[in-house]
């Protein structure tokens, strides 16, 4: 397709990897040959392999395949509980999968190698093409080929020279017209004259290559933004019960916090505060379609910057609020029954609203109470207590006799506890989850096989702990003026990701580049006029660079319009309308 050009200031088409369809045979000949040469040549050969179309293609396909296992096996980053469950069900396979990094696919050595190679290839491909394209943008359209009739999309007509003009003059006039016509079609034009034949060479659609480069360049931009932005990102989680607050500071507010490498946790966090005034939720009533489904979650909060007045705000799903560049999301909600425990002397040893973790739409929830101090046995020994409980917002009894929750809202709240006495294992400083109780080293004194029934409480009720250890009360919040008997809590997620904006910018650039790269036709057109004896032969030809379904139509249109401008009425020979297909039925 491409012709050797003697002119230094013409650039022949966009630069392509050597195994691109449009590169010439000499480009292909320089493709894989066993290198017998020195180290440098060997390196150069390797580089050319890496930046070839075939390699890019194979790496793309490998990337697609390598991404799949991450959707089949739970991933630590997205679903840590899933990984624990998987481990419990497949104890033998777990170490094998773990060694293969199948629980961390997207940070694994093998996945990373593929995309890093792909991006090296991409950079190696884009840089020389950008340089080449830069030159092409300022070069002249190439010389008119000697024999236009050999091109696929070609038309010609012979016109008579009008009286009083010579053939050469009429040829020049025809080319003037063609040049003006091509210019108005936004072609870049250049005139050539070889052996009496005048021609205009025209090219358009440089934007196609620009778009291609913008697209590929923007992909690099996306990757860099993700990589660098990740270093400045922090995310944290917190739980706030109605009436309570949160302060944006590491020591105070967060239940978990993951800062990126470059985050200065001392100084980057603005100490604003958020108080949960009320959490709203609606449940679809029994008997309606989708009964029991909850929705319209709304956390009514008061937010405050240090030294300023409090503001009211609402956090909803899909509508995070923004504070000092942090986006604050509503991630979950649940019940936090308020529990008071008194020892045998009647002293309060525990009084908190304890967040229970819900499971499923009917909100059967699990929670743990730990009492490290203040309880003494009847023998006078001090004892630690652990309580593991279920909360049922609408308690109901299954046929098996087991309790369950029938509905997510507070229709018939009930709290049950198993009680353990002994050593909680928290004195040695090992961090323990506030949601889990490790009963090793403890004795179960209520519930299950302990011989004592589990404790059951409705709001406002108080029952005795076993063995005369004291009492436990499930406080009714309506007694304190609240609207509901049990407090609710929300879990919030706080994110600061300044890289995200850049990712979006590059993604949009990529999309725009793609439009141009795929839909702008890049084509060359030539019109040549060869003076003869009282006539002028006018030839039209077009050449598509890359996909261009409309090139034939474009050549026809050019020939037709040019003919009309010349005052010729008969259609050019190749440009005759297409034959209609005959009727068959």
């Amino acid at each position, binding site marked *: 397709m491409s012709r050797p050009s003697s002119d230094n200031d013409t650039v022949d088409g966009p630069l392509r990897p050597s195994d691109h369809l449009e590169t010439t045979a000499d480009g292909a000949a320089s493709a894989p040959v066993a290198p017998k040469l020195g180290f440098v040549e060997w390196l150069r050969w390797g580089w050319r392999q890496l930046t070839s*179309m075939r390699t890019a293609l194979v790496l793309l396909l490998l990337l697609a395949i390598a991404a799949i296992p991450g959707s089949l096996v739970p991933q630590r980053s997205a*679903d840590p509980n899933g990984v624990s469950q998987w481990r419990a069900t497949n104890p033998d396979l777990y170490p094998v999968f773990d060694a293969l990094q199948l629980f961390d696919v997207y940070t694994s050595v093998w996945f990373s190698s593929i995309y890093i190679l792909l991006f090296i290839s991409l950079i190696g491909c884009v840089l020389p093409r950008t340089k080449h394209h830069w030159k092409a943008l300022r070069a002249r359209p190439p010389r008119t080929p000697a024999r236009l009739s050999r091109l696929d999309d070609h038309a010609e007509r012979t016109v008579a020279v009008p009286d009083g003009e010579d053939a050469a003059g009429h040829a020049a006039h025809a080319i003037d017209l063609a040049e003006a016509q091509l210019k108005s079609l936004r072609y870049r034009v250049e005139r050539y004259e070889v052996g009496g034949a005048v021609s205009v060479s025209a090219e358009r659609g440089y934007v196609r290559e620009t778009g291609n480069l913008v697209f590929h360049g923007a992909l690099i931009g996306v990757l860099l933004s993700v990589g660098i932005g990740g270093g400045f990102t922090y995310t944290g989680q917190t739980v706030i019960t109605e009436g309570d607050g949160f302060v944006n500071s590491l020591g105070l507010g967060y239940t978990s916090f993951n800062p990126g490498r470059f985050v200065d946790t001392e100084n980057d966090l603005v100490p604003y505060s958020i108080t949960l005034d009320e959490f709203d939720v609606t449940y679809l009533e029994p008997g309606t379609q989708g009964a029991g489904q909850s929705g319209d*979650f709304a956390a009514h909060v008061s937010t405050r910057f240090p030294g300023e007045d409090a503001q009211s705000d609402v956090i909803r799903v899909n509508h995070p609020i923004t504070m000092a560049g942090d986006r604050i999301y509503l991630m979950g909600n649940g019940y936090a029954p308020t529990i008071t425990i008194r020892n045998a002397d009647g002293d309060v040893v525990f009084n908190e609203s304890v967040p229970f973790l819900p499971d499923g739409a009917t909100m059967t929830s699990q929670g743990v109470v730990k009492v490290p101090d203040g309880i003494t046995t009847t023998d006078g020994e001090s004892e630690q207590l652990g309580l593991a409980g279920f909360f049922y917002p609408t308690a109901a009894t299954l046929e098996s006799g087991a309790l369950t929750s029938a509905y997510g809202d507070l229709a018939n709240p009930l709290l049950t506890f198993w009680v353990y006495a002994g050593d909680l294992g928290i004195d040695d400083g090992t961090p323990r989850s506030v949601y889990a109780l490790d009963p090793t080293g403890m004795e179960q004194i209520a519930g299950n096989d302990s011989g004592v029934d589990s404790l059951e409480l409705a709001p406002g009720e108080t029952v005795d702990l076993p063995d005369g250890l004291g009492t436990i009360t499930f406080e009714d919040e309506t007694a304190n003026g609240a609207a509901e008997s049990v407090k609710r809590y929300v879990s919030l997620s706080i994110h600061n990701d300044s890289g995200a904006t850049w990712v979006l910018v590059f993604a949009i650039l990529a999309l725009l580049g793609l439009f141009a790269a795929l839909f702008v036709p890049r084509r060359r057109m030539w019109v040549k006029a060869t003076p003869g004896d009282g006539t002028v032969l006018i030839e039209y030809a077009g050449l598509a660079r890359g996909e261009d379904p409309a090139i034939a139509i474009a050549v026809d249109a050019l020939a037709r319009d040019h003919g009309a401008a010349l005052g010729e009425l008969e259609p050019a020979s190749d440009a005759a309308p297409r034959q209609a297909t005959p009727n*068959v039925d």
Partner: protein
Amino acid sequence: MSLDDLSVLLLWTAIAIYTLAFLAFSVDLARRSELAIAAQDAKTREHAKTLVASGGQTIADIRSEEAAAKAALEARPSQRARFLFARLGTVLTVLGFLFHLGADVTRGIAAGRVPWSNNYEFALTGTMLVIAVFLGVLFKYDLRFLGAFVTGLIVVLLGGAALAYYVEVVPLSDPLKSIWLVIHVFVASLASAFLALAFALSIVQLLQSRRERLAIAAAGTDAAPRTRLPFLRTLPSAEVLEGLAYRFAIIGFILWTFTLIAGAIWANDAWGRYWGFDTKEVWTFVIWVLYAGYIHARATRGWRGTRSAWLSIVGFTAVLFNFTIVNQFFKGLHSYSGLG
């Protein structure tokens, strides 16, 4: 009868009409086969008369057949061959589409929101878009030879969805209450519609290129090339089919790219991160990369033609897999199939 019941009724009517359209288009292909064979017989007789070569075609015959098929493909609607059964198939498809549209709109009104919020509705709207794009493209290209494939595919997908995915209207869950549900899911469905047509064309391309290889091998010899699908002779060449498939695929690809970006924006609003390799995100990405591979393959020496066609087929298989198996059985944040 509730509006939703009406929607279901319209839907089954549409499926029945599409089935008839499928039959009409199939008869059309069979009649084209007869035509192709008759043309070959005539030629054979002529050859015998003039005592030139016997049974087979010459390369020139093959080329002129190709040129005629290409011209027919690009002919304007008024100049197209009046194949009776192809016209019947088209009319039935239009009719089926109207019922389908009715089913979709009534479902939307019954639900009081856009009708693409669970698997059943995705299928309803997605298949409707396949037909819409197919009918729209008929104005530009005579793709009626794809009619049997397209209507057949739609009958299977839509019937399957109506049987396996139907759920009654329930209010949206909170994460779905977003403008991005309207945009992201709709564009994803539209992308799938274009990719579906590319897929259909790629399959015909593979059949055609096999037939062409045999025909060229047999050219000039005594043996008439044997094909089990003689109607292929009346269809455009594999190269033309490939170019067409590519055009649909790049439109689908751009729309898919937009889907990916819009999905990330939505995820950032709903879950606080724009990307987390959630199962659905993984599959959206895999599909995107597969089609990027397909576009590259088309420009790589040694990959244009049959190999790139296979990539288009694999790509659309991944689209279907994503929609059925991933939505239904893979665990993740995107549990919106409505199938519990």
